[in-house]
């Protein structure tokens, strides 16, 4: 995994070597789609501990990691189950410290995006007009309110501290072996997360030749030189959706929501879908026809863009 030419690696190795106990971790930053659940599951199998999840949304991924004992802090805007509602593991951890307590650093989606942007571009802080009047300023003392020094009249503004995650794991529809990644559709905070993180793991739905990525540089969300490892993980975002590739498996997430209502139900779910499944390939085999039914088969292709120079 060391050299520039040698970033392709197995999911197990990427998680073992690049995500360490106590790290701050972004697992998907597009809000609802492109969430690298395959890495969520592998973190649980490898029993990582003390993770601080930096997440605008990340659907049920954060709830799973809290329930499995991997995540003990959340730096984010929202934890739950997007179609189901509340996150039961998150509730148990926050309300009764079961199976352990969770430290919550409250953000909103916009302030989290601005924090990652500040981290990415070396800004000492990001000034925003959001959060004024919100008790998030009280529950998270990392924000500072000052009077706008550029204004002639008194004008409070909020300073958002920069965030530099230890690791960002981003699921993309296609990337080359160096991690140059094409992403289309809405991208949430993924670009800011990729540029702010100390290490980036790309989970590619498809590995393609460098010429394919280079044929359309405007579609590159982040360049390969910020990427530490590239994992070939077809459907690594299941059950979240990915534009042009996968529909959302809402029934799967609803089933998780029901089963995770009780600690026993959650453990049973974890046993069935994570702990008794050795790896991502076995997970896909277990999904079988269900996964095939989620595959987007239609074509709605963009018009080609001409980059000719003469």
């Amino acid at each position, binding site marked *: 995994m060391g050299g520039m030419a040698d970033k392709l690696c197995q999911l197990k190795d990427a998680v073992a070597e690049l995500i360490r106990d106590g790290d701050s971790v972004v697992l998907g930053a*597009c809000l609802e789609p492109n969430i690298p659940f395959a890495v969520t599951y592998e973190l649980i199998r490898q029993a990582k501990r003390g993770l601080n999840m930096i997440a605008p949304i990340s659907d049920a991924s954060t709830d799973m990691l809290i329930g499995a004992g991997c995540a003990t802090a959340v730096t984010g805007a929202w934890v739950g189950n997007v179609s189901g509602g509340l996150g039961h593991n998150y509730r148990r951890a926050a309300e009764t410290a079961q199976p352990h307590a969770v430290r919550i650093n*409250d953000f909103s989606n916009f302030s989290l995006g601005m924090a990652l942007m500040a981290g990415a571009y070396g800004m000492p802080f990001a000034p925003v007009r959001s959060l004024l009047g919100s008790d998030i300023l009280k529950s998270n003392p990392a924000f500072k309110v000052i009077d706008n020094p550029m204004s002639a009249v008194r004008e409070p503004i909020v300073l958002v501290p920069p965030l530099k995650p230890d690791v960002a794991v981003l699921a993309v529809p296609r990337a080359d072996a160096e991690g140059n990644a094409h992403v289309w559709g809405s*991208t949430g905070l993924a670009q800011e997360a990729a540029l702010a993180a100390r290490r980036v793991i790309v989970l590619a739905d498809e590995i393609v030749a460098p010429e394919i990525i280079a044929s359309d540089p405007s579609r590159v969300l982040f360049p390969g030189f910020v990427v530490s490892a590239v994992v070939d993980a077809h459907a690594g975002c299941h059950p979240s959706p990915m534009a042009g590739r996968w529909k959302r498996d809402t029934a799967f997430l609803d089933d998780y929501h029901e089963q995770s209502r009780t600690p026993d139900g959650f453990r049973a779910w974890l046993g069935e879908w994570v702990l008794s499944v050795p790896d991502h390939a076995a997970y896909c085999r277990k999904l079988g026809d269900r996964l095939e039914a989620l595959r987007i088969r239609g074509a709605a292709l963009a018009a080609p863009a001409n980059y000719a120079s003469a």
Partner: protein
Amino acid sequence: MSFSTQELMIVAAAREIRDRELVFVGMRLPIMAFGVARLSHAPRAVGLFECGVVRYAPADGTLHTMADPPNQLGAAWTTGTVQVMGLMQGGRVDAGFIGGAEIDRYGNLNTSYIGGIERPKVKLPGSGGAADIAAMAKRLLVIMNHEKHRFVERVGFVTSPGWLAGGEARRRAGLAQGGPAAVITDRAVLRPHGPDHELHLASVHPGQTIDGVRAATGWDLKCLPGAGETPAPGERELAALHTIDKDGFWR
């Protein structure tokens, strides 16, 4: 023509959207309201989604989340969260829809903690983009079910600021614009009134009574002068709704 309570809520929400406005659209009822507005009185309204989707026409197909593939297909712009919320910070967004677990007399919303921060009785999912929309959209539109334990005197935690303590409190906090303009529930429509901005009953839905709405409200709800019945959906509005709601999910 007959209609369900949810259809009435959708149409009441649609009426809050004016033509050519940029509107932050949430899921479920607001997304339907945006579609109805586009097909009836606001054909040039633009919908924004915090995941980074901007749309002219509403999506064709069922959405479980705002970033599902049908919402990407045919979008006006697919970009990032900072871009669409930055537009709102820049003052370009006219209105935004949010919901909440709790709302109070001044339209402040809680989606974070019930019963204290340290050991909450209920840990709710958190802000998402709601706090940003409440702070920075020019008008805040709230949609939620009307129950006494949700409509409280004072929320225990202000995730999304409304008029705060009323009067000039919101402006004093540094929020130069915005504030709740309407709260659309399954029983009524509430609006802020007077310099204090306290939420008042603006209209009750057909089949509801003023006393019934007051009984479902955790503060002494006053009526706006001339408060009457929420106008039933018109033919054009219902036709628009039926066009979008092909499967009759909201009927």
